[in-house]
């Protein structure tokens, strides 16, 4: 019920914006005193947001690119070294490739796994079941817990000696595992953990599901389709814009994973969870290599850009907007 409401809000505000655009284009010189005052107020109000964006985002982004071309350890004045940092990254730093591999490995699994899990949860919670509110709250709850706290909690559950998971494995007679304490298991363990905080994604899917027109389901029923047909031919196609949105958000989030490495594993064991953001942090703040850390950050930025563009470029093939493409 919420979605159509907000849709009308959006469309009416778009109309307003169009009207004012129209007006400013044709009648710029003929602004009345009152309009002029409104314009100043408006500019005044947005100036904070725009100023903040420029000062806190644009300036640091530009600065970090400049720093990435230098050798700078904070104590001494930066010295310009051109693209040496990038050359070092690509040719002389095995840990860069390792961190890239770790991050890619994690993202490749955590993104589909957590999206599928969130989608399944949203489907379940879109049914008319008893205590619906309670279940929706329960599944969203983990997302309210600060990630530091939940990381500590998972640290305990993963504990090989007295953790919950090994106790469970004991119970069903399976061999104990070392989870995040073993190089080959640390990433799968963290992927598993990523399912815990799908709350926000689930909410977005839920909102999307409620936007699927009922008559389409009725049409499937009339044609003799079953639940599977409804899911495959109605729900998923109608949900593709929401899926696209969640896909992008979760790709970016997965590539920027940091807290798990920082709190739970310190990048270990044997650099097995050396996520690239954690590696950047280590270079910048433990080893004081600001120039190199900035170059690493730019590599990550370009990677995220490239993936986002790729997703957008291919999206017209599989994303369906029921209001039309424009």
């Amino acid at each position: 019920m919420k979605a159509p409401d907000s849709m009308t809000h959006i469309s009416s505000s778009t109309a307003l914006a169009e009207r004012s655009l129209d007006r400013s284009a044709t009648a710029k010189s003929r602004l009345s005193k009152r309009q002029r005052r409104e314009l100043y107020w408006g500019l005044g109000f947005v100036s904070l947001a725009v100023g903040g964006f420029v000062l806190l985002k644009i300036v640091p982004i530009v600065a970090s690119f400049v720093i990435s071309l230098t050798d700078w350890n904070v104590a001494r004045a930066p010295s310009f070294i051109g693209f040496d940092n990038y050359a070092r990254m690509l040719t002389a730093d095995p840990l860069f490739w390792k961190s890239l591999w770790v991050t890619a490995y994690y993202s490749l699994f955590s993104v589909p796994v957590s999206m599928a899990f969130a989608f399944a949860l949203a489907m379940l919670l879109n049914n008319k079941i008893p205590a619906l509110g309670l279940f929706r709250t329960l599944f969203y709850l983990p997302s309210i817990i600060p990630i530091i706290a939940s990381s500590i909690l998972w640290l305990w559950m993963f504990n090989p000696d007295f953790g919950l998971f090994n106790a469970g494995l004991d119970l069903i007679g399976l061999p104990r595992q070392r989870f995040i304490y073993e190089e080959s298991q640390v990433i799968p363990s963290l992927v598993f953990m990523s399912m815990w905080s799908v709350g926000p994604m689930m909410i977005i899917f839920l909102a999307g599901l409620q936007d699927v027109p009922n008559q389409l389901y009725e049409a499937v029923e009339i044609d003799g389709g079953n639940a599977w047909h409804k899911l495959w031919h109605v729900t998923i196609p109608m949900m593709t814009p929401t899926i696209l949105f969640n896909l992008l958000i979760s790709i970016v989030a997965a590539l920027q994973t940091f807290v798990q490495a920082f709190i739970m594993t310190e990048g270990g064991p044997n650099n097995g969870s050396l996520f690239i953001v954690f590696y950047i942090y280590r270079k910048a703040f433990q080893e004081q290599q600001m120039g190199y850390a900035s170059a690493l950050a730019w590599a990550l930025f370009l990677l995220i850009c490239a993936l986002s563009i790729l997703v957008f470029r291919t999206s017209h093939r599989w994303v369906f907007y029921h209001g039309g493409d424009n």
Partner: protein
Amino acid sequence: MSRYQAVLKAGVIAAGLAAAGTGGAMAQDCAEQVDLTFTFWGSASEKNDMETAIRTFNESHPCITVTGQHIPNTGYVEKITSMLASNTAPDVAYLSENQAFAWAAEGRLLDLSPYLGDTPEDIYLKNSIYRVGDTLMGTGLATGVMLIYYNKDVFDAAGVEYPPAKAEDAWTWDEFVENARLLTKDRSGNTAADPEFDPNNIDVFGVAMPAWWAGWYPFVVSNGGDFANEEGTELTLNSPEAVEALQAYQDLIYTHHVTPTPTQTGTLPAADILMQSRKVAMSMDGMWRVTDFNDTRMNWGIGVLPVFDTPYTPLISTPKVIFAQTEHPDEAFEFYQYVSNPEEVGLFKSGLWAPLELTYFTTQEGLDKWVTSPEGEYPPEALDAIVDYSLNHTGEQVPPYQLRNIGQIFNDAVNPAITKMLDGTVSAQEAMDEAVANAASLMQGRW
């Protein structure tokens, strides 16, 4: 607009009044009122003691006002790095060795030779003095050596003699292992020396060992090995001496079963609590733990580390620095000395810090200021296990205060190898060969 102006005015007036108030009280005979900032880290109780010391300093020095800024350990490096980058570095600060030496080399830290003289070794424990080339960066904040802590009741129950407190009487490694085996018990009450001992069901561990460098490095040195070669251009942890000691360290966990695995340790409570609840009999830890053990009701004692060849314990400290851009170097130095003065700072008596100056170790008068002070909280064997041990068995300065690029050497080469070794996945030899290979391109010599 006028409303904002009124608010602004009120603020200015209030600030002016406040300034006038303090100014009036302070402005006695000062040529100039000096403001200093001081950044430090530490637990809540450390913070309390340090703030008390700062208050006392400000009261006894009416012309100097020190503003203490406590920054939690986890964010300290980030914070102080940004302060330095934005030219708002404090006057006096604790600084981790990973940053301190590099910054001193760049001239960002004050050379203290004019204050400490050319031979500070005559006054201070030599390993607490930090030099970078010709620059005397200063001294540590305080000192501390690695020790063995033990629960006397557990030892009595097992009929094992206490670890010796005198370095000359120190256990050999084999004696240490043998005693640790007698102290380790499984859930059916068998000790690790019994044939029926079940290593999968251990109830009490003989000894808890720290995984950071101070946990294994002492034995490498005691066995005649070292961390790096003379020039600091090559890691030497794969030498036969080093590998023997490290293998012995790994064997504590997987061969003798007297030490918990790193994963067990990682989530266990701190050593003082473990020992109080009789889950470990001994624990290797820093002298600074005395203060925590004092808070327990257990019957505890301290002894020296076991030896391979020669008795050795590392002298560990944190560089304490004055930033070069301070406008008041003289006053900053006055506070610099105050922070490490056992007569002024309670942390020396409570067992967190040992002093830097030799007189506090060699004269009765000096000892009375901390170890043997009526408010001192040290066990009697501290005179051997801390005082004599610090003075006579701390060898050369430890690698973190000597090697360039030490942060990266640990992060990229040494720590991953040690982790693998302690996980039991590879032998000490394999782990160290890998560490040496990975460190090859990172070694940049000594400061």
